[in-house]
């Protein structure tokens, strides 16, 4: 039941990323900075922090695979980055207590690194053209997703705590 709700949330966010959010941030798509919605990634990072990194790894794999299938040219690029980032986030968390500030920082770094991995994966197959990676262009993306994290932190953490028995630190 709880897993069903979680899957529905993820599917909903996946559809929102491609449709509604695209319309409302259409104004800024063309500008030099990028506001990319990575809300699915944020939720999967939460899952990895609260429910264990193994589960998050496979959820991220499936989620990324859907992104690749629907929008991408290459199958596997986003599946890889969406699976690896939450895993690494949880790995880094073994030694800390969970609190809001640390989660925000994790999401910020996680999303930023996700963009870097995405670029590297596509660049490997020459899909990015001759354009170099813009280091500053992705900070707005990270900020946007951190704001999203701040909004959903309370409800999502309460929901996930009822799902698992608290936090499973590396016990998977």
């Amino acid at each position, binding site marked *: 039941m709880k897993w069903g709700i979680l899957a529905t949330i993820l599917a909903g966010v996946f*559809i929102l990323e491609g*449709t509604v959010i695209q319309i*409302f941030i*259409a104004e800024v798509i063309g500008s030099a900075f990028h506001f990319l*919605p990575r809300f699915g990634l944020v939720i999967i990072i939460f899952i990895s922090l609260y429910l264990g990194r193994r589960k998050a790894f496979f959820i991220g794999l499936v989620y990324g695979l859907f992104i690749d299938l629907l929008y*991408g*040219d290459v199958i596997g690029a986003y599946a890889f980055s969406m699976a690896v980032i939450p895993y690494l986030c949880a790995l880094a968390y073994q030694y800390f207590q969970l609190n809001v500030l640390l989660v925000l920082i994790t999401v910020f770094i996680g999303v930023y690194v996700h963009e870097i991995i995405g670029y590297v994966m596509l660049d*490997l197959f020459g899909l990015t*053209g001759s354009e170099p990676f813009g280091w500053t262009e992705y900070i707005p993306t990270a900020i946007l997703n951190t704001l999203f994290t701040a909004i959903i932190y309370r409800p999502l953490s309460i929901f996930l705590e009822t799902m698992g028995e608290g936090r499973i630190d590396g016990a998977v």
Partner: protein
Amino acid sequence: MSNFFVKRRLLALLLSLILLVIIMGITVKDRPFPTWPERFIRDSFSLVQGVVYKPAYAVAGFFENIKHMYSAFEENKDLKQKMEQYTQMSADLQELKIENEQLRDMLDAKESKLSDYKVRAAEVIARSPERWNHTVIIDRGEKDGIRPNMAVITPKGYIGRIQSVSNYSSQVELVTDIERGNHIGAIIQGKEHIFGVVEGYDPKNNLLIMRKIPMQSEISPGQLVITSGLGGTVPKGLVMGEIVAVRMDDQFLTKDAYIKPNADLQKIEKVFVVERSFVPPTEIPVPNPTEKGGGTRS
């Protein structure tokens, strides 16, 4: 089984990495007709996305309208003035058309087959939320007669081509995704036509780049660029945009023209898929002396 993977984690990791790279390598090619699982997933998502996208667009459009209300008065004045010129222009156009037809009759020249096309209306249902693929998904697919590589336009001009087709939805590669060998033959309209290929995109300024224009050709900002219809499935005469800057290329041998796309690529709601009536043969035909003066000249 799970014991095996726990014991040999490194092996499993390496194997899955290799598998990943293999899958990426296989799928990196341009695949106009995806396999059936892909089609199934795309089609089923396109259903839901279509339901979500339209109301959202309507809401966004509503806010836009409120913003526009403030500038409506000034705009109205402007437009009225333009309207008056337009009457004159359409009268001229009518005259020219008749004259053109008569002259063609006199010369016994056929209509150019290059600019002949049919359109199919389609609606956008989603857009890729990422940076490196500029993909838009539309709600018409193979069952509606859409085929790969057809041109996609909005009333304002050319926006891209069909990249891959599922049964009830298809993916459009936008013109801004041009770096991947998605080159389009184009003409700069002026005193005489200058042919060239639009083959680059400048993401910083949102401009298309037309490269390798001969040095001596006279081009200046403000000239229109249209598709040339030479080769491929893009018909002639679709508006691409307007030149905003001309620059020497790196070797100082040719010129680069920077083109501002005419269609608004950020906000796309309804599009038309263009089916060309005449698809040029891949082999070059031997010229037939009796068909001299045939309409393929522009």
